[in-house]
């Protein structure tokens, strides 16, 4: 009996219509899948670049940044911010109770005690001391290893200490502050990388000198507690930020002491001496997001610290995770920023004020608006832009890791889903304190 089924009719080449559609469907699916790695921000492995210049448009007249113009320093000398705005919060307000604020300010214990001051002054204090803290003694002969082996050892040691990620790059003088400014003593001086200097030191004229032999920069990331960050901009989130700074000071000092114990020089850096984000990008740890922060390969909830050394190390290459592609369509941080300090729209090469480092094509945050909000917020650091970022998710879930990788492809759709799922919402501190214990 002849087959009268319409779908089983064959073409002149002997292919049934059904099989034709099956093949076409498979071809379309394969083509769609094949596109993923070709977008430049693939889902399998991040694309690498040879240098930061391949990823970012940096103008030729790009100048080193003067730390004095950094927003925290401006609060010390710029008449525009004197007197600083008064706090608009008090302990009777939800999110700012005695309990919340105590938890917030206690988080800073590690970094604000023992003279460390988390490097927001000009470095070389407390845990960030440029001289040995005396825990390891330099050997008679420096430890010898190939750069690859040494880099592996450093990364392994960092990993086992609990450091979230480690990358290695070399000194790029463009990203070092031209001058330092000490917010405590108001000391101001030049920062020089010198070919003739044999050790890092402070000259009598106030110049800080770093020998060019200390050309390797180990860039490391410390994670901040997810649950505490989720309460931003309330009091408890301040503790999350502070604890990130506290733990990174300890990590930086430990790594520096380890290297000194191998017979090499080491300078631990917090937020001082050189810009953190460009160095982290150069070390292959992530990209700069719309919020001006590093969106790293381990997420958005990180603090950056560095150790400069003369221990020869194999370096890493910058990576393109597709973060900027995603940020173009996301804008969630701009929408959620209580100070409206984060820009919407495209990247630019000029920022809104002197606290921006002009000359790189990126999103420039209005640091003045951001910092003034902190004052109004009672000195509580606001990290709402990190807390609300779709790249900020709890650790340990492969589903979120997958989501981060396909974010550049999904773009704005992911933000809609993220909102629908309730991620990035402010967790009220009364709810925060009622959570059950994990163990």
């Amino acid at each position: 009996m002849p087959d009268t089924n319409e779908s089983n009719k064959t073409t002149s080449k002997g292919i049934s219509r059904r099989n034709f559609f099956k093949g076409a469907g498979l071809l379309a699916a394969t083509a769609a899948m094949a596109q993923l790695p070709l977008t430049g921000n693939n889902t399998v492995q991040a694309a690498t670049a040879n240098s930061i210049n391949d990823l970012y448009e940096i103008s030729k007249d790009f100048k080193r940044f003067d730390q004095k113009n950094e927003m925290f320093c401006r609060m010390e000398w710029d008449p525009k911010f004197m007197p600083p705005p008064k706090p608009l919060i008090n302990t009777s307000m939800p999110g700012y109770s005695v309990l919340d604020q105590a938890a917030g300010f206690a988080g800073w214990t590690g970094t604000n005690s023992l003279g460390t001051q988390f490097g927001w002054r000009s470095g070389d204090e407390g845990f960030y001391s440029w001289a040995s803290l005396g825990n390891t003694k330099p050997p008679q002969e420096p430890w010898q290893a190939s750069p690859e082996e040494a880099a592996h050892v450093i990364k392994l040691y960092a990993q086992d200490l609990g450091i979230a990620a480690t990358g290695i790059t070399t000194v790029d003088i463009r990203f070092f502050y031209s001058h330092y400014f000490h917010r405590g003593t108001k000391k101001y001086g030049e920062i020089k990388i010198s070919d003739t200097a044999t050790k890092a030191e402070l000259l009598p004229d106030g110049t800080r000198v770093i020998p060019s032999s200390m050309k390797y920069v180990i860039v490391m990331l410390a994670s901040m507690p997810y649950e505490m960050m989720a309460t931003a901009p309330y009091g408890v989130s301040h503790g999350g930020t502070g604890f990130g700074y506290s733990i990174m000071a300890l990590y930086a000092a430990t790594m520096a002491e380890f290297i000194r114990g191998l017979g090499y020089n080491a300078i631990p850096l917090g937020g001082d001496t050189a810009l953190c984000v460009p160095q982290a990008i150069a070390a292959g740890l992530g990209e700069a997001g719309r919020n001006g922060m590093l969106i790293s390969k381990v997420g958005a909830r990180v603090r950056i610290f560095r150790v400069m050394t003369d221990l020869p190390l194999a370096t890493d290459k910058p990576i393109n995770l597709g973060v900027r592609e995603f940020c173009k369509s996301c804008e969630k941080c701009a929408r959620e920023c209580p100070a409206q300090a984060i820009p919407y729209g495209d990247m630019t090469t000029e920022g809104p004020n002197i606290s921006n480092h002009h000359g790189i094509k990126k999103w420039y945050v209005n640091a003045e608006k951001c910092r003034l909000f902190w004052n109004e917020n009672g000195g509580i650091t606001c990290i709402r832009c990190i807390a609300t970022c779709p790249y900020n998710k709890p650790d340990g879930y492969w589903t979120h890791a997958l989501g981060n990788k396909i974010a550049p492809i999904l773009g704005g759709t992911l933000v809609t889903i993220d909102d629908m799922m309730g991620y990035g919402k402010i967790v009220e501190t009364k709810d925060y304190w009622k959570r059950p214990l994990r163990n």
Partner: protein
Amino acid sequence: MGILGFFLGVLTSVMVYWLFVKEKNYQKWHTCVLAIIFIAWTVFTVDFVITSLLEGMPQAAAVSALIFGIGEIILFVLMRRFSKISLISFKSETKTSVSGK
């Protein structure tokens, strides 16, 4: 998380047995591909919903169940369309015996 991994392993095994051993979907390439996608989608959906609950995000669990559930239904309908699978195996046997008359 260990229990979840075990549960997902059991779920995968049951689905592989159902779709490949019992329903013999390996015989045609398109049903084979569809069955693999169906299994992967189901495991991902279940994992996403449970981990969202574990991380204290019931809203995320509900939304993910809704979003991935739609895909789950579409895949199930496609599986039924192309491989004539049935949730209750005796149904297909009954049909065969009726048509055999």
